[in-house]
Each structure stands twice: as structure tokens, then as C-alpha cells.
């Protein structure tokens, strides 16, 4: 016989299992019951309100098994082809790749015709992946010499073409990733970073397609593209100056991103640009800075970290706050290492920083009180 304690445990476990699975409609039903009980909503409106919300789509058992069977069949085909790859004539192998690309594209077109945007996005993303893989495999099939960077850029162009043609955020995302990979592969060459325009396109499309992933990808691509500029500069001092400029640029972009009207994209871009600015600023003086330059850098680092925490709390931006916290922690550790664990000097420096921060905080509080 179940004890009361065991019953409670079971109820809690069932609730924990079912809570994540509860759809919006079921949560709305629970809320409506509370509102009706509290007299906020007339009981006769409960059914009408629930009727305006469509039932969540669920896969029944047969559909689930069909999906599983399809995935297993796909894996089986892939494994069979891979096992016999070298035995298949070259032209047949190439034909398989072309066939797969065309099939994926046709599937995407069919899904678009049936107004199924998620299926369209998935199929076009798959088509972009197949095209990227086909470039490499074509080189392998026909023993063609090629430049890895050119192959990556070509795959990127194909992916962005599919993405723009079919409004597929997945294909555009893949394109940005491939452009970044191409820039990374060519990091030692003085080439124009294509991740910058790719990132800009992704950022521009993100609010229009309601695709947050594009905002993330675009922001990261922008940081990588800015960092690529280091390949153009030689010498420690010029590189330090450039990193300082990149930190300022990232900070400027973070400020500019505040003007973006769409809140999710704004938050994402501001967050990444702040992270980029902190990263570049840290790299400016982490290695090679000596004497007064190092002291200035460390002080600015402490103040910058504190400033980010304040700004992040003020704007309600968790990533900004977190970047400030992490930046401060790394700054403290770096200063301790700089001073060779000279605790007395570290104590003086942190005390000075604390006085400065407290003074600013006191001044801000006084100013806030002075405002009627």
C-alpha cells in the first residue's frame, strides 16, 4: 500500500515529468480555472477562450514509428553507399551527389508550395549541406587539386543562394559558418575577410525572418572578421594598437546595436559585441604591455569590467553583466600574476579600485536623489 509520503513523491515526479510537456493550451486551461475561481473571467467564456487556441500537434504512435523508420532507412542507405563507395564508378558517384542535391531542393520547393515553412527550411538546409559536401567529394572522386579556402567560399555562396531563394535561415546560417571557416583557414594570408559581409547580411535578415540564430551567427562572424584584420599587420606594437581599435569598434557596434528595434536581435547583438570588445581589450595588453602601459591597461580593465556590470544591471542585459563579472575576475587574476603575487601591492591596487568604484556609486546615488 502506498504511503502518503510515497504518493506525494509520485505526484511530484509526475508533475516534474509532465510540466515540461505541458502545452500552452493546457497551461492556459489551468490559468483560466484560477481566473474563473477568482471571479476575473466569466465561467461561460472559458470554453470560447480555449477554442481560440489550436490544439498542439502531436505525433501519434504510427507517425512516430514512421519517422523513426525513415531515419533508420536513411542511415542504412548512407552506410551502404559509404561501404561501397570505392566500388561505384566515378561518374555514378557524382550522379548520386547531384541526384541527392536535386532531390533535396525539389523537396524544399514542394514543401514551399504546400506552405510548410519549417519543412522548407529543413530541406533547404540539408540541400546546402549536400552542396558543401559535394564540392569536397567531387574533388575526391575526380582527384582534383583544390584550395580549401576556395572550396569553403564556394560552398558558402551556394548555401546563401539557397537560403535567399527559399527564405531558409538554416541555409544562410550554414553559409555564415562556411564563410567564417574560410577566413579561419586563410588566417595567415592577407585576404579580405568575407565573414564581415556575411555577418552583416545575417544580422540584416535576422529580424526580417524572425531568426535569432542568424543574429548569433552574424555577430560571431563580425568578431571573427574583425580579428582577421590582424593578419594584415606585422609587429607586436602595431598589432596591439589594432586590437585596441578593434575593441573600440566592437564597443561602437554594441552602442549602435542599441538602435535595433527588435528586442531579441538587439539583445543578442549587444551581448556579442560587448564580449568581442572585452576580448580584444584584454588581448591588447595581456602580452607585451610593459611599465606604465600595463598599469593603465589593468586599471582601465578593472573600470571597464565594473562599468559593464553597472550598465548590464541598468539595462537588464545579463550577458553584459556576465561579461563584466568574468572580465573583472580575469583582471584580478592577471594583476596578481603581474605583481608576482606581491599581495601588499595587490592590496593597494584593489583598495584604490574599490575607492574609485565606491566614489562613483556614491555620486550616482546622490545624483539620482537630486532628481525630483
Amino acid at each position: 500500500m502506498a504511503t502518503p509520503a510515497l504518493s506525494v513523491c509520485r505526484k511530484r515526479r509526475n508533475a516534474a515529468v509532465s510540466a515540461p510537456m505541458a502545452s500552452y493550451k493546457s497551461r492556459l486551461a489551468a490559468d483560466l480555472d484560477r481566473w474563473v475561481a477568482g471571479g476575473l473571467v466569466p465561467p461561460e467564456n472559458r470554453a470560447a477562450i480555449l477554442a481560440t487556441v489550436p490544439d498542439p500537434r502531436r505525433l501519434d504512435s504510427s507517425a512516430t514509428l514512421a519517422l523513426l523508420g525513415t531515419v533508420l532507412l536513411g542511415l542504412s542507405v548512407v552506410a551502404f553507399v559509404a561501404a561501397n563507395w570505392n566500388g561505384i564508378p566515378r561518374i555514378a558517384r557524382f550522379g548520386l551527389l547531384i541526384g541527392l542535391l536535386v532531390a533535396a531542393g525539389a523537396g524544399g520547393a514542394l514543401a514551399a508550395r504546400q506552405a510548410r515553412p519549417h519543412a522548407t527550411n529543413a530541406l533547404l538546409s540539408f540541400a546546402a549541406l549536400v552542396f558543401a559536401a559535394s564540392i569536397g567529394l567531387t574533388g575526391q572522386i575526380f582527384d582534383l587539386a583544390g584550395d580549401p579556402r576556395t572550396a569553403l567560399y564556394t560552398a558558402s555562396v551556394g548555401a546563401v543562394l539557397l537560403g535567399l531563394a527559399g527564405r531558409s535561415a538554416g541555409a544562410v546560417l550554414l553559409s555564415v559558418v562556411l564563410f567564417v571557416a574560410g577566413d579561419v583557414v586563410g588566417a595567415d594570408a592577407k585576404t579580405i575577410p568575407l565573414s564581415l559581409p556575411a555577418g552583416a547580411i545575417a544580422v540584416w535578415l535576422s529580424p526580417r525572418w524572425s531568426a535569432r540564430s542568424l543574429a548569433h551567427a552574424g555577430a560571431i562572424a563580425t568578431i571573427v572578421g574583425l580579428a582577421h584584420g590582424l593578419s594584415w599587420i606585422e609587429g607586436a606594437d602595431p598589432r596591439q594598437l589594432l586590437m585596441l581599435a578593434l575593441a573600440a569598434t566592437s564597443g561602437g557596434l554594441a552602442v549602435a546595436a542599441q538602435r535595433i528595434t527588435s528586442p531579441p536581435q538587439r539583445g543578442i547583438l549587444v551581448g556579442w559585441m560587448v564580449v568581442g570588445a572585452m576580448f580584444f581589450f584584454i588581448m591588447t595588453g595581456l602580452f607585451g604591455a610593459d611599465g606604465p602601459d600595463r598599469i593603465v591597461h589593468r586599471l582601465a580593465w578593472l573600470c571597464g569590467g565594473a562599468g559593464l556590470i553597472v550598465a548590464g544591471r541598468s539595462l537588464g542585459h545579463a550577458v553584459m553583466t556576465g561579461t563584466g563579472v568574468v572580465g573583472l575576475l580575469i583582471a584580478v587574476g592577471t594583476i596578481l600574476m603581474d605583481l608576482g603575487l606581491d599581495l601588499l601591492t595587490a592590496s593597494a591596487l584593489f583598495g584604490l579600485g574599490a575607492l574609485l568604484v565606491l566614489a562613483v556609486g556614491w555620486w550616482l546615488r546622490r545624483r539620482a536623489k537630486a532628481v525630483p
Partner: protein
Amino acid sequence: MMASLPLRIMLATALLAGGLCGFVFYESVQRDRGTEVQIRVQGVDPRELLTGHSVLIRFVEQRPETLVCFPGDPVHDEPAWLALKIRDGVAVPAGMAGTRESALEQGPLVVRGRFDCAPTALGDGSEEVVVDLGIKRFHAPQKEAEALEDLLRNNGAATDVRALVSIGRDGRARLKGLLIDGERLSLDWW
């Protein structure tokens, strides 16, 4: 008038598929119509082909006395043009330059690539020339690997392995096959 979404998708897909097919056709034409030369290959163990995997190859020659290594060309570390000349039926490096025209002044054949000089394993101060044509490996399917096995059974251990390279009008090298002790192994596409 903007095309409908399905039509745009099919056009983009057709463009990509057509682009791939066109690229293979272009490479095929350049390969077939290019100038065929033989280049000595090092590091090929023909028995590796029997596994059907890719085989790493290096083009290595003993450095001719007339060949200047590290000529001080500012494009030494940049993509360059390699001048070749034929010696005893084998193409050997004759020089390197930044432009095709400059390379043609050093040898009758030019190909996109570069060479580097390195001391030999003998340690006697001699140098060898390692040629980079962009071809670093090739893949032999099962049929061709079996044909090579027949060759080995008939000819014993291979001592002279040469790559058959086609130099297209665009100056790029494309691998056509191998010459193993005079026996031709073609890497056919069709």
C-alpha cells in the same frame, strides 16, 4: 515580377547542380586536351592501393645543378608559376616565377605550382627538389586496384613510378594516371 518561392528554390538548385556538372565538364576537357607530362613520384607504395584508400604522393627530383633554390623571388611564398623541362622523358623543374610569361623564359612548359629544395636523407649535402602542383593524393577504386595487383604479379616490385599529369590551358595540373615500370594505369573518369 518576382518568381514564386518554389520556382526560386528550383532555379537555385538547378544553378548549383548545373554549376557542379559544368565544373566537372570543364575539368574533364582541360584534362583531356592538356599537355601530358611524366613526373617522378616518391612515396607511393602501390600495395596501399589495394586497400582502396587514398594514396599520398610526392613529386621529388634530385636537384639539377643549374636550378637555383630560393631565388629571392618576392613571390616565393605566394602562388607561383613553375617552369618545367623534359629530361629523359621526365618533366623536371627548371625555374619558378611570379607570372606565366616570366616562367616561360625559364622553361618550355609552365604549370601553376612551386618547388622547394630540401636536403636528402643521405646527409651528404645533396639536395632534392620537392614539387608542389596541388596534387597530393589520389583515390583508386577497387577495379583499378585489382588491375595494379595484376601488374605487380607480372612485374614484381615496382622501381620506377611516374605520375601522368595533364597541364591544361589554364596552367593547372591534373592527374591522369600512373606509369609503373612502363605500364600505364589510367585513372579514368567515365
